[in-house]
């Protein structure tokens, strides 16, 4: 298994003192070469990432409604104070945590089970199963949402008929979030299976064969060989889930609940979008953006450290 580590190659340093001192121009030219190589990448990074980031930080201390003809007023830390004192942000963060926790079964547990099961099937049937599992990923989220809306309809929906309930799933505070998680899970599970499948293909079959020669049962091979070697893939999926779940749910929230009922499905991204592009409160949205950015950096850093500890690499 190839891992993502890079060898650090130190530049060979010449120990000999040059006979003739290089002129200033030559020194400059030699010095500039590495930077010239870096320049295109750095320029793009600055234009597309760091500049907007700095602009966001700048905007977060202002009040502005995004209209070119209206002035931008400096308001100090008022935007941050408002975010941290009203409950909105805390609720949105909690909803995001719910979504992430709810998504993990769909992005880690189910895909592993499906991939292990599908592995036992041979021949064409396997391709058919894999295609079937992947199919929901190909449905546009908004189109899928429309179908789910019918399925979850309170009076005529198939879900209520099957379960014998009369719930308005998407308009009840206790079930709206669950519905969104299941719909998003249905949508991304195919992708997660594909990733797990790719991880499994990367495992050298010799390990399993060797274990079997030593008398390991298929269950033991799965538990002690396949799963440990799959751990980097699973860690990757876990990281993806934590960082991207809230984004995956976005189109569905926008189509099905618009963050409602009464904010029950408003997660951090939807809140950000509502502040920025519904209320056109650029300053408040920017402040929320900065807070989320910092928050996600911390989460990502923790997760990458955790992943390094927990995963087992086939070095």
């Amino acid at each position: 298994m190839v891992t993502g580590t890079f060898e650090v190659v130190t530049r060979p340093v010449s120990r000999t003192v040059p006979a003739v001192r290089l002129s200033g121009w030559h020194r400059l030219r030699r010095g500039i070469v590495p930077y010239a190589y870096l320049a295109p990448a750095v320029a793009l990074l600055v234009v597309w990432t760091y500049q907007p980031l700095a602009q966001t930080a700048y905007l977060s201390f202002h009040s502005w409604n995004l209209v070119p003809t209206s002035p931008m007023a400096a308001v100090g830390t008022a935007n941050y104070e408002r975010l941290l004192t009203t409950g909105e942000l805390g609720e949105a963060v909690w909803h995001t945590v719910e979504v992430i926790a709810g998504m993990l079964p769909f992005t880690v547990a189910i895909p592993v089970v499906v991939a292990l099961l599908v592995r036992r099937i041979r021949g064409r049937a396997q391709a058919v199963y894999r295609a079937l599992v992947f199919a929901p990923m190909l449905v546009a989220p908004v189109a899928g949402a429309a179908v789910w809306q019918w399925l979850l309809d309170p009076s005529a929906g198939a879900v209520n008929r099957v379960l014998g309930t009369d719930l308005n799933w998407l308009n009840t505070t206790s079930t709206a979030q669950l519905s969104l998680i299941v719909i998003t899970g249905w949508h991304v599970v195919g992708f997660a299976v594909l990733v797990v499948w790719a991880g499994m293909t990367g495992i050298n079959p010799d390990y399993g064969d060797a274990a079997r020669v030593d008398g390991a049962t298929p269950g033991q091979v799965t538990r002690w060989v396949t799963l440990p070697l799959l751990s980097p893939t699973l860690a990757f999926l876990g990281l993806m889930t934590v960082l991207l779940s809230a984004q995956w749910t976005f189109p569905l929230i926008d189509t099905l609940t618009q963050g409602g009922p009464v904010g029950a499905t408003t997660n951090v991204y939807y809140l950000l979008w509502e502040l920025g592009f519904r209320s056109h409160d650029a300053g408040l949205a920017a402040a929320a953006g900065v807070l989320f950015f910092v928050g996600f950096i911390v989460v990502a850093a923790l997760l990458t450290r955790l992943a390094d500890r927990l995963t087992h690499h086939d070095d």
Partner: protein
Amino acid sequence: MKRTLCVAATLVVAGCGIGGTDPAAPVDRVPELASDQQVSIVLESYNFGQAGPWTDTFTELIDAFEQAHPNIDVTAQKPQGNSANPATDTISSLQSQLTAGHAPDVVQLGFSDLDFAINELNAAPLDDLVGTDAVRANFDGDTHPYADSARTLGDWNGKTYGVPFVFSTPMLYYNKTLFAEAGLDQERAPSTWDEVATAAKAVTDATGKGGAYVDCLTKAAKDWCFQALVRSNGGRVISEDRTRLTFAEQPAVDAVTTMKGLVTDGLMPNLTQTQAVEAFSRGDLGMILESSAIQGTFLKGATGKWDLGAAAMPSFTGREAVPTNSGAALFVFASDPAKQRAAWELITFLTSERAYTTIAEKIGYLPLRTGLVDDPDGLKSWAEENPYLRPNLAQLDRMEPWVSMPGTSYLQIRDGMMEAVENAVFHGADPAESLRAKQDEVSDLLPDGDR
């Protein structure tokens, strides 16, 4: 050292490209168009966001306008966005386009956006643009003037910015067929909220279908008819001088409590706006308090299956109901004089006698030139055949304006208030507590609040 430099450079760059420029210059009178002067303008209206009667009617009107004004080319578009109700997208769509520097020339905006559209987005004052006489002449019309209560809805500080275009008052639509099944008098609609509850109970008991739905109690419904409910109970959502929010005061709390009672008694199903409109159209709901904008949809659903009845907005026992208006006015955002003039031509056409005849017949919105109803060349015969218009027209006389919330955060105030209402009515929160907490929170967003 290098890192510091880089950060500093980035911060300098950050200053560029964002932020406001100079406010718009004062508006001068715009010249008439020469007959051969070709102008093309963009009309943005949420009426184009829904297929069926809305789009068809307005496409027909635009075609007629282009025939009457061969030198003006109109591109009609719906607001950007994908909300179930395109009227929700108007202001964010306009704002995005203003941000990008290409605003549509004529925009149909809700009355809730009045303050913001005029004071923040700089809608053009029509009195300055075409002269007070021309504006007045348009309201007076060729034969039928605007209803008095409608004329000033788009005014601000004595100047007309928006020409009131399409709106309704809250109407109680009811399913006569379900009423008959429940043993109720088909011709006598409930006139108080107590009667609504009784009728709803009869309908649910007899048919097992939904009783009543009041489409004034969710964030998606906006606050136009919630304001009517609160006004009908003797309160206001905001003080008359618009400096203080009052939606947590007793009249509002009582109105919300009455509505919540319908839900807890099982007489009002927990539905979204879209679901409720669909359910009523299917014949699965006894009554719905709704704008007449949806009347066309109801009639289409009812045809051949059930009978539609319409009545005035119910009152709270012992008080008179105070209807408010829904709907929108037409504003000019064009900056080029030729386009501004063409925009005015379009507005006068869309608010003409002829246009209102079409709009009232095909959609169900009020003909703001009320005289049309008695005009044999206008809507007389149609109004006699369709009993739905009369209660709406009667309410127009004693209607009060839908008040827009002040300041740049007006949407957060309005939506916050409606979220508190929705939370209390449908999701179990205590009305007094929910409204009080929200009022305290969003009061900071008023222009002279803490912020």
